[in-house]
């Protein structure tokens, strides 16, 4: 998996945690970090000196550098753009690099755990490869026959929102169909509804994915409770702009009795 980068080098993060061990500490954060692998594990408490503007990932790096060089964490950009550092901070699916420490009350412990929905590899790193496999099953872009390759900005405004996805899989992690009901073999999950919406609504695309959405991607399993939208770090309006419009298209084909009769009669 090229996307995986398990960081456990000591000393990589000293620059982000300026308050060294010998210095007077004005403020400390207490982090409980999950340590373990598929055979089990427990939360370990670390005290981390806090500098202004620090994020949870900085604190994790400080722990790696000063306390636990074998702590596994996946990260790349520290700018909320690569989608690698997904975890659950105080039980909420979040990007560690986008979650500031000053967001939490000073006296509260901050818990950092790996995503629940995917198999754990080690500590904060989970195996998200299922997502890449799902991605391969989606019917790809297919140009409309005889398409005139000119379109207006207004035709693509809508799909540009979906292109913001950084594949952090936080929406997949929080979605109860995957997380609680464990229907991974029947449900593609919100991230892939976003991708399918981007293909379906593309002005030059000629593929029809309604059947795939209904029978394979399991869009009917989504009960539009919007947890995916709540956690998306790119603020993609997943449910309202991707899933519901796709549900409406599936209704057009499979559930709207008048439209179905009309299609039978006119062949359109």
């Amino acid at each position, binding site marked *: 998996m090229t996307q995986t980068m398990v960081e456990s080098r000591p000393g990589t993060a000293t620059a982000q945690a300026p308050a060294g061990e010998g210095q007077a500490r004005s403020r400390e954060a207490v982090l409980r970090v999950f340590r373990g*692998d*598929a*055979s*089990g*594990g427990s*939360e370990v408490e670390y005290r981390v000196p806090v500098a202004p503007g620090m994020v949870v990932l900085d604190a994790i790096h400080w722990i790696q550098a000063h306390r636990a060089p074998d702590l596994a964490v996946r990260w790349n950009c520290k700018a909320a753009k690569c989608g690698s550092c997904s975890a*659950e901070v105080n*039980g*909420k*699916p979040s990007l560690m690099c986008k979650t500031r420490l000053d967001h939490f009350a000073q006296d*509260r*412990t901050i818990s950092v*755990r790996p995503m629940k929905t995917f*198999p*754990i590899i080690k500590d904060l790193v989970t*195996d998200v490869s*299922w997502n*890449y*496999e799902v991605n*391969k*099953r*989606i*019917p790809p872009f297919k140009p409309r026959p005889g398409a005139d390759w000119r*379109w207006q900005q*207004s*035709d693509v405004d809508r799909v540009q929102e979906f292109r913001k996805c950084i594949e952090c899989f936080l929406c997949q992690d929080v979605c*109860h*169909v995957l*997380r*609680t*009901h*464990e*229907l*991974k*073999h*029947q*449900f593609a999950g919100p991230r892939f509804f976003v991708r399918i919406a981007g293909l*379906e609504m593309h*002005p030059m695309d000629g593929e029809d994915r309604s059947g*795939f959405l209904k029978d*394979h*991607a*399991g869009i*009917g*399993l*989504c*009960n*539009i*409770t919007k*947890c995916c939208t*709540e956690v998306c770090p790119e603020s993609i309006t997943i*449910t*309202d702009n991707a899933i*519901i419009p796709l*549900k*409406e298209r*599936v209704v*057009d084909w499979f*559930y*709207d009795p008048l439209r179905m009769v009309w299609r039978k009669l006119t062949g359109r």
Partner: protein
Amino acid sequence: MNPHSDRSWAGGAGTLAAPSASPGALPGLPSTGVPAGSFRGRGFGERLGATEREDAWWAQPLAQAIGLGLLGLYATWAAFQGNHYEFGNYLSPFYSPLFKPSWWPISPAILILWAPLGFRATCYYYRKAYYRAFFGDPAACAVGEIKSKGYCGELKFPFVLQNLHRYFMYLALVILVILWYDVIRSFAFAQPNGGFRIGIGGGTLALLFNTTLLSLYTFSCHSLRHLVGGKLDCFSCVAAGGPRLKAWSAVSVLNGHHMGFAWWSLFSVCFADLYVRLCSMGVIHDGVIYLSSLFDTAGGTGL
């Protein structure tokens, strides 16, 4: 649950072989290659309400359950009363259009109210609200659910009927026209010695306010958004693409506030009924500011 407790996994976890996607096969979905129940989430191993969240995640579903419960109870009660729904030129929105066949034994509201009720019950926003608040499915994000093996979302009866939302939307549009007629009528106050005068009463304002909110709610509907243009892939490639893009954009703007309109219009519709009811019961006195002199309807025209 102690969120800081140690954790272990059910047996069988740890085989992380990535499932292979066979290119020629049907486009079904792969599995994670790890048995269900062996993730840290443990699926149904968790109880309803089990969570590692530390905030007041229960506050929102609780508030919604109370809000929907109280307004729902009031609406049901008012619909079954079958009286005090009219006061002069005011008609309660629960009873509009007023249709009172002699063979119908109970409140006339029941003949009408199934349509707006179906519209709200299948509304994408209300679905979210009641799945969370009443079904706990999920009550809040990253919170455990009631154990039930056969989760099928909106795939099976009765939830598969949610797909008919657009038909309720068509009905709601018709009812909206009638409600606007009621608003117009509420400006015309019959006078004791014949004829009527144009004026604004408390009920006029209640009906106007309510019908405005109901219009905003209806015009922000997801199914309407799909109908007016959302189903198109390329606005510049179809006939009347420009107006359809405009219509879709306008509905999209309203759609961003659909939740707010859903709640405000639910309050206002109950309030409008309550206002008419209290006037009719003589509990409150409806004040009117007249804007015109007498229109004589001796000629037979009148609202």
